[in-house]
């Protein structure tokens, strides 16, 4: 037995998926995340799944460790060393106030306080020429200061290092030598693109989590080895690719969206195999809902990410999947303001106290409470029966909202619960429209791919709101992020600033630049993954001469000027609606993604068959459009075979998730055992 294993550690649960490529056996488990020592939760999952670590061929691991360290400010005592005159760049930032009417607006404090920000004499100009040499004796004196300050890590940033990284490299090497045991990192080992604040912020963020991530990964490796695990450990990068342990230790900042990425990879893999061109991946959990576009099996990767959000947070220049998040989850609180207006979220009851129906002391009605009151959740079978839900409590909490709104009696409770869901739907639909509108796409051309604890319950209503004809729910939607991690490729992203007019003269330089990046990436993949087959994707950031806004254009044939120009015109037109064939184009930056494909499980085998009775039960569910409760069929997911089809209203229950099919919808089980809910029948249309 040799299992490919993926482990996803989230805020509430640790999920594990194992797949044996020979026997095609699959195992899923969930266990409470064990703060203090995450390894315990992982071992608990192994045990529940009937596996031992020595049976794992390799482990792909995603974790929210890095983002949590930023948000909870639990990172290292880090220092910053900059060019003389520039230590405040980290604090001045870009001087914008993203929330214009907040008179008391305050950005999050910088990760490194001013007293731990130091300056070194050196200067390189905009073309990479040394104006002032790096003062090594001064640097040595600085090393002593850093030692005295007892810092655990040091970030090095110098002005214009994107054009010439030599001073940074020398300084970092020197500080490593002088400060054994201190984690040292410099900006150009993370990004070779210009903009001093973004690069400083990135390297500061890397230093901030460096010691913690190194300790965590080394310890995890040791603990698993001690229990017989002999294979490699790979980490899930925010770019959607696997990272080696060594690379992760150098670039821990690459783990910032390590958690939610799995679902998007999974959505991409299903979309590719099922032949869906355009997919919206939609993940609804306890506190937020997230969505991302997947086109032709590929999700969009942004080269900048804001930790703790654009409004408060700081930027990280690192390839991160493009996800839009809104404060709408199962735990989102419904409330009434001073003008008697009903709102849902963005505040969440989280997992503690959680929704009223969890009986953990929550008193405010949430989205989950509304679902329960309307019969959409089965109070006896929540999380496979691990938690019995309190319908009475949920109903009372909703009643407290209903009365001020003027909705009396039991009917008023139902009307209000339905309203809470309607408002959550409008908010989530707005997020989906946002990701599609920003890319010039119409949501109606997409398939909605819905997972997470709440995704399958809310997907059909969302699809109808957005006029999306079909909703797809993958197997084990509650564990889907871990499944996605099992499907990931090894991936390395490189980028560099490259400016010049797109013309025959720069083609040679362009080819050289890509060749250099390709050699570097291929060598890394060979070394870190033993990869032989490496494939590349190239993008260039381009614009018309004189503009300031770049678009990212795929570059397929580097040597072919006309092909690059044509791709630019095509993408420009898609984004702006027109193009200008007479205007010269400029290059601004080059991006390279290198992939090495890993063995993937066969997607057909990801559902565990069981002996559950195929005859459905039924229970009454409230649908406002039908004027009240309607009897809905209740299916057990494992019992449904490929090709099965039935009309709504229906619910399909499985461990960790419930799928809802509206009264005018119908559903079928597709070739990969996915549920396909068809939502495009007009109300009242003949079934």
């Amino acid at each position, binding site marked *: 037995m040799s299992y490919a294993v993926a482990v996803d550690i989230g805020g509430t649960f640790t999920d594990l998926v194992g797949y044996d490529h020979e026997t095609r056996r699959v195992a899923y488990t969930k266990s409470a995340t064990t703060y203090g020592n995450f390894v315990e939760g992982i071992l608990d999952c192994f045990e529940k799944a009937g596996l031992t670590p020595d049976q794992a061929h390799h482990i792909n691991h995603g974790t929210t460790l890095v983002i949590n360290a930023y948000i909870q400010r639990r990172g290292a005592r880090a220092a910053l060393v900059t060019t*003389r*005159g*520039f*230590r*405040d*760049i980290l*604090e*001045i930032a*870009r*001087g*914008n*106030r*993203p929330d*214009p*009417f907040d*008179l*008391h*607006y305050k*950005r999050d404090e910088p990760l490194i306080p*001013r*007293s731990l920000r130091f300056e070194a004499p050196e200067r390189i*100009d*905009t073309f990479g020429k040394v104006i002032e040499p790096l003062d090594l004796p001064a640097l040595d004196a600085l090393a002593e200061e850093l030692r005295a300050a007892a810092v655990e890590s040091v970030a090095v940033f110098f*002005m*214009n290092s*994107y054009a010439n990284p030599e001073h940074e490299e020398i300084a970092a090497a020197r500080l490593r030598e002088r400060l054994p045991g201190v984690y040292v990192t410099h900006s150009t080992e993370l990004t070779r693109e*210009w*903009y*001093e604040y*973004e690069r400083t912020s990135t390297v500061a963020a890397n230093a901030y989590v460096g010691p913690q991530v190194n300790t965590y990964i080394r310890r995890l490796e040791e603990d698993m080895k001690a229990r017989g695990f002999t294979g490699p450990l790979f980490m899930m990068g925010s770019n959607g690719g696997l990272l080696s342990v060594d690379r992760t230790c150098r670039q821990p900042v690459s783990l910032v969206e390590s958690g939610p990425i799995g679902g998007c990879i999974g959505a991409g893999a299903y979309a590719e195999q099922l032949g869906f061109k355009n997919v919206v991946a939609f993940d609804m959990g306890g506190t937020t809902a997230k969505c991302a576009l997947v086109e032709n099996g590929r999700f969009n990767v942004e080269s900048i990410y804001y930790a703790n959000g654009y409004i408060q947070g700081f930027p990280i220049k690192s390839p991160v999947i493009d996800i839009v998040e809104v404060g709408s989850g199962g735990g989102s609180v419904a409330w009434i*303001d001073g*003008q*008697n*207006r*009903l709102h849902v979220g963005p505040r969440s009851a989280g997992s503690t106290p959680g929704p009223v129906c969890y009986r953990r002391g929550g008193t405010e009605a949430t989205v989950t409470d509304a679902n329960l009151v309307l019969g959409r959740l089965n109070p006896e079978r929540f999380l496979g029966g691990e938690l019995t839900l309190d319908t009475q409590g949920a109903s009372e909490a909703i009643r407290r909202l209903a009365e001020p*709104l*003027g909705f009396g009696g039991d009917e008023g409770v139902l*009307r*209000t619960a*339905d*309203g809470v869901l309607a*408002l959550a739907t*409008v*908010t989530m*639909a*707005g997020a989906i*429209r*946002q990701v599609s*509108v*920003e*890319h*010039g796409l119409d949501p109606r051309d997409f398939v909605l791919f819905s997972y997470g604890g709440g995704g399958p319950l809310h997907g059909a209503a969302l699809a109808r709101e957005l006029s999306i004809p079909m909703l797809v729910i993958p197997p084990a939607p509650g564990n889907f992020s871990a499944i996605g991690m099992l499907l990931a490729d090894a991936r390395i992203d490189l980028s560099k600033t490259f*400016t010049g007019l797109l013309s025959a003269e720069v083609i040679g330089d362009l080819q050289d630049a890509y060749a250099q990046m390709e050699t570097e990436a291929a060598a890394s993949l060979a070394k870190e993954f033993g990869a032989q087959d490496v494939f590349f994707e190239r993008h260039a950031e381009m614009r018309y001469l004189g*503009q*300031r*806004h770049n678009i990212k254009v795929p570059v397929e044939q580097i040597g072919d000027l006309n092909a690059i120009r044509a791709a630019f015109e095509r993408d420009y037109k898609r*984004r*702006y*609606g*027109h193009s200008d064939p007479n205007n010269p184009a400029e290059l601004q930056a080059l991006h390279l993604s290198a992939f090495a494909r890993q063995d993937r499980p066969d997607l057909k085998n990801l559902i565990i068959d069981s002996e559950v009775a195929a005859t459905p039960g039924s229970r009454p569910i409230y649908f406002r459009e039908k004027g009240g409760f309607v009897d809905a069929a209740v299916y057990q997911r494992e019992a449904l075979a490929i090709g099965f089809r039935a009309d709504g209203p229906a619910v399909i229950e499985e461990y960790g998730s419930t799928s809802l099919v509206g009264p005018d919808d119908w559903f079928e089980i597709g070739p990969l055992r996915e549920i396909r809910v068809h939502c495009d029948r007009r109300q009242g249309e003949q079934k």
Partner: protein
Amino acid sequence: MTHQASRPTIDPITLEVIRYGLISTCNQIDANIKRTAFSPYIYEYNDFAVGLTDIDGRLVAQCTGGMPPFVADSVGTAVRDGLKIYGLDRLYHGDVIVCNHAAVQGQHLNNTVMYTPIAEHADGTGKLIGFFAINVHWIDIGGTMTHSNDIFMEGLQLRTVKMWSKGEPIEEVYRIIENNTRLPTELMGDIEAQLAGCFLGRSLVSNLIEKYGADTFRTAIDIILDQAEAAARAHIRALPDGEYIHETWLDNDGEGDQPIPIKVKVVVAGDEITVDYTGIADQAKGSINSGYHGGGLTTARVAFRYLVAPDEPANEGLFRPLKLILPMGKILSADPTAPMANYPMPFPTVIDAVIKALEKALPERVTGGHFGTHSGFRLFGRRANGRTFNGHDSGHGGWGACATHDGSGPYRTMAHGDTRLIPLELQERLLPFRIESFSLRTDSGGAGKFRGGLGFEKKYRILEDCLLQTNLDRTNHPAWGVLGGKDALSGSVVVVNETTGEATSQCKARGEPLKAGEVVILSTGGGGGYGPVEERDLALLQRDLDEGYVSRAAAQNTYNVAVDEHGRVTRPA
């Protein structure tokens, strides 16, 4: 709220779904404009606003981002001018109207509102029910590049002109616009984006109307406006009645050297607030003027929103309890022929003054003054290779402290929003200077129980001869403290010739020649403090010292504390 009884009823949940839907529509169009616009004014500075009005031109919903001065119903004013000129019987589905006129919007002519009517049905049939409108800073509409004496020197005026009629573009109007701009490619591209945004917005609103029905939609709008009004009145009722006054001065109007008085009176009475600008300066010779709506009403509404109702979505109802007293012919109610190119220059100070006036009435909300000046900084000229260059930079400064924390920043002014400074590495590539340092300015924030935010200091080493234009004000009246907090330091622009040792102040330079090798130091002001210095928490002051936000000397002199040889702070008994 007195009409509510006679109105058809609508259930509160449908109402909320419509409200969420309208704001979400405006935000989607906001995202769409940013995606499709050409000019950095839009995608970098967010110099635009998206809104929906009802059939009378009342603002119903607006996007949540955008520039603060646009929140004051800039789009509704234009629509109401259209209703006055054409009347409803001459406006049709498929019309697109533009307006940038000084008599209507009363701001610089770049701000151009475009709008299109929305009919009851998505196919354009049925009665008109509202307008979808977008205000965009047009990148160039002709006019002088430096200073002007009247509005006619500032470019092309379009007073309520149809660009489309019944679904067809009017090519003559396009031709006029295209031939009256220095940047036709960019401007026509932005206009395309603005137009596409109007049409997409119209269709999204139509979908909502189709879904709920025109009558329900109209009723929902009335209730949404009334609820916003009720919310605003409830906030105002919580304030103590009284008359509140503050007076300050701008340095000058950029032409002469006379201080410009900014005297504001705010009257709180019951559930209404009146802003009285009677004491404000008369219309100026320099181009710092704005019209009654674009200046007076706008600044009053921005201050109102900052102080009283920051979380309420902007609409016509929200501003009903706000009254304005403003005689014509003032800098905020100038004649439509007055020069307005630099119209927002007084805004940050006026808004600051309204906030300061209310310090006793709203101690939990007010903040110390902010640095409050646009601090424009432009270097231009011709490179050795003959190519011209023109680099706009600007100063970000400190913001005032408030009842709960120290002031923040450096940010841009209260008349700006999500406006980012230009990266130094980009500036060095494009322009003939090198930045020698870019630092927070120690001691620039006003002292107090909570300290004002710091300004910055930026040193430019000039590498080739060039010209300097600046616009930095409030040097004589820097950001003030509130409720006993101290004033901040003001900003400055100083040109230093290191060989002669000569240093000259250049706060309002108009093309001042600079020599290669000279250094220009741009220092921006800090924000004012909040509350008396005696109440400053010693731990916070210790941190200020440790981090270098406050110098040892300032701690001793301003905060009256003792600092020992290890830098430890104690307060003498």
